[in-house]
């Protein structure tokens, strides 16, 4: 029965003219996609639940999840992620960029490293060196972290890494990262070692090569909710307006604007009690509070200042900008509302701000 099934299904195939028609149609469609504006390309790439498989080493293929899916879990990932699937092999060590997720402010890349068969990579503090990711367009990310992620088998020849890239936007509407082209090269694999003789930390190099990915253009689904509530609130003891709220699978981005913020035009203090203020709370449809995770890279950030660049023609205004991430990817369909300093901002367009 198995043989018959195989033979009967194998007989199902494209004809020569069907193949030719398919090639012509694909070529035309791809050309149209390339020519579309960026926003349309994002929509076209809403390949939300793309997953990947990695074979490792010689011998049986082992199927594993894409790095960011394994790290973040399903839910928000299925909507937000994009498959990449670029591998670079150097002296038998293969680094694969499996998937990515992002919004205008953050880009997160998942990497799977496979060392030659028999290599044991059993530490939790490996750290590859990375060049500064160089973006060729308008976006100029200012910070990045490459972090080892939890591994399924801590003693095999594989490791996972996540690269978080932050693109600080001075103003709402500044260029984002989606669809931008970057150059990326990852070098070496090291871990830190405390040398008791010299009483200094030193780096032990496990692999001394590089994985040059060249130029990468990464596009991912744009699921951001961008709202302009323009509601008055009291923040940091003064009056201001919540002028912009952006919610993406990665987190919240809230902008306050007001002249009274003038005395706050220094960087928003890190850590401590100030991080509790202003109060920004995200609720899901069941009424549960979603707790931000300050330990995730760029978990909770804030900045304040003014746009009074003397070379810029625009009028000065004073702002406070707070970003919260959650350590997992938000399921956009499950979100209900955000409470900002007591003001309730629904995440459904039919509801009004209370």
């Amino acid at each position, binding site marked *: 029965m198995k043989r018959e099934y195989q033979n009967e299904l194998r007989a199902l195939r494209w*004809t020569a003219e069907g193949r030719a028609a398919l090639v012509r149609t694909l070529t035309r469609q791809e050309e149209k996609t390339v020519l579309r504006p960026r926003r349309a390309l994002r929509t076209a790439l809403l390949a939300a639940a793309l997953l990947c498989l990695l074979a490792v080493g010689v011998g049986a293929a082992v199927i594993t999840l894409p790095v960011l899916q394994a790290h973040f879990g399903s839910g928000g990932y299925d909507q937000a992620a994009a498959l990449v*699937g670029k591998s670079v092999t150097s002296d038998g060590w293969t680094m694969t960029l499996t998937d990515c997720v992002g919004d205008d402010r953050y880009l997160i890349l998942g990497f799977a490293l496979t060392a030659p068969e028999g290599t044991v990579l059993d530490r939790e503090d490996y750290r590859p060196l990375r060049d500064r990711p160089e973006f060729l367009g308008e976006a100029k990310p200012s910070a990045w972290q490459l972090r080892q992620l939890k591994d399924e088998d801590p003693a095999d020849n594989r490791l996972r890494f996540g690269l978080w890239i932050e693109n600080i936007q001075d103003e709402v509407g500044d260029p984002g990262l989606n669809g931008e082209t970057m150059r990326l090269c990852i070098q070496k694999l090291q871990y830190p070692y405390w040398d008791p003789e010299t009483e200094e930390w030193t780096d032990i190099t496990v692999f001394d090569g590089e994985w040059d990915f060249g130029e990468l253009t990464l596009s991912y689904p744009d699921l951001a909710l961008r709202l302009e509530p323009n509601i008055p609130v009291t923040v940091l003891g003064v009056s201001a307006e919540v002028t912009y709220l952006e919610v993406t699978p990665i987190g919240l981005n809230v902008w306050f604007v007001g002249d009274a913020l003038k005395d706050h035009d220094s960087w928003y203090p890190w850590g401590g009690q100030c991080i509790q203020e202003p109060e920004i709370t995200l609720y899901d449809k069941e009424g549960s509070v979603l707790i931000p995770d300050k330990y995730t890279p760029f978990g909770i950030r804030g900045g304040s200042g003014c746009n009074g660049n003397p070379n810029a023609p625009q009028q000065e205004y004073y702002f406070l900008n707070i970003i919260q991430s959650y350590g997992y990817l938000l399921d956009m369909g499950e979100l209900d509302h955000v409470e900002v300093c007591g003001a309730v901002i629904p995440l459904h367009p039919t509801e009004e701000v209370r």
Partner: protein
Amino acid sequence: MGQERAQEWVDRYADLLLRIGYTWFSNLPDAQDLCQTVLLKLLETDPHLPDPEQEKAWVIRIAVNQCKNLRRSAWRRKTVALEEGLALTTAPPEEDRVLPLVQALPLKYRRVIYLRYYEEYRVEEIAQLLHMKPALVSTHLSRARAKLKTMWEEEEHEAGVSE
């Protein structure tokens, strides 16, 4: 350049994707649409994976997920009609015996039958391809086999009666 790459992907995976689509949707037009959708994604993302088996597994996974997504969306409107009047694909011959039985099974059974007995993946691999627990894959395989056996016997019996 675009045409060459399209030709490469079509040569490598068009038939495989057609069979996956047929397994999922049980009709050729939808299978052809799935094929077009996945091949376009491959052209756009242009993945480079170090070994052919890895690449094939990757493509199957994309197709499986695309089947899941597209079944619950208005995806059929998004594909571009291929030229009309052409015999694009072969059709399953009427004298086929096993394929119609498999296609008569519920989707949850025929997809594991396809991956196990056509692509010859192991249970653990199928579990990862379908994002299921291995025990559930085994259960589905076992039930699918039992149903196929019953259907086969009924067909044999009917054939005997009609003779």
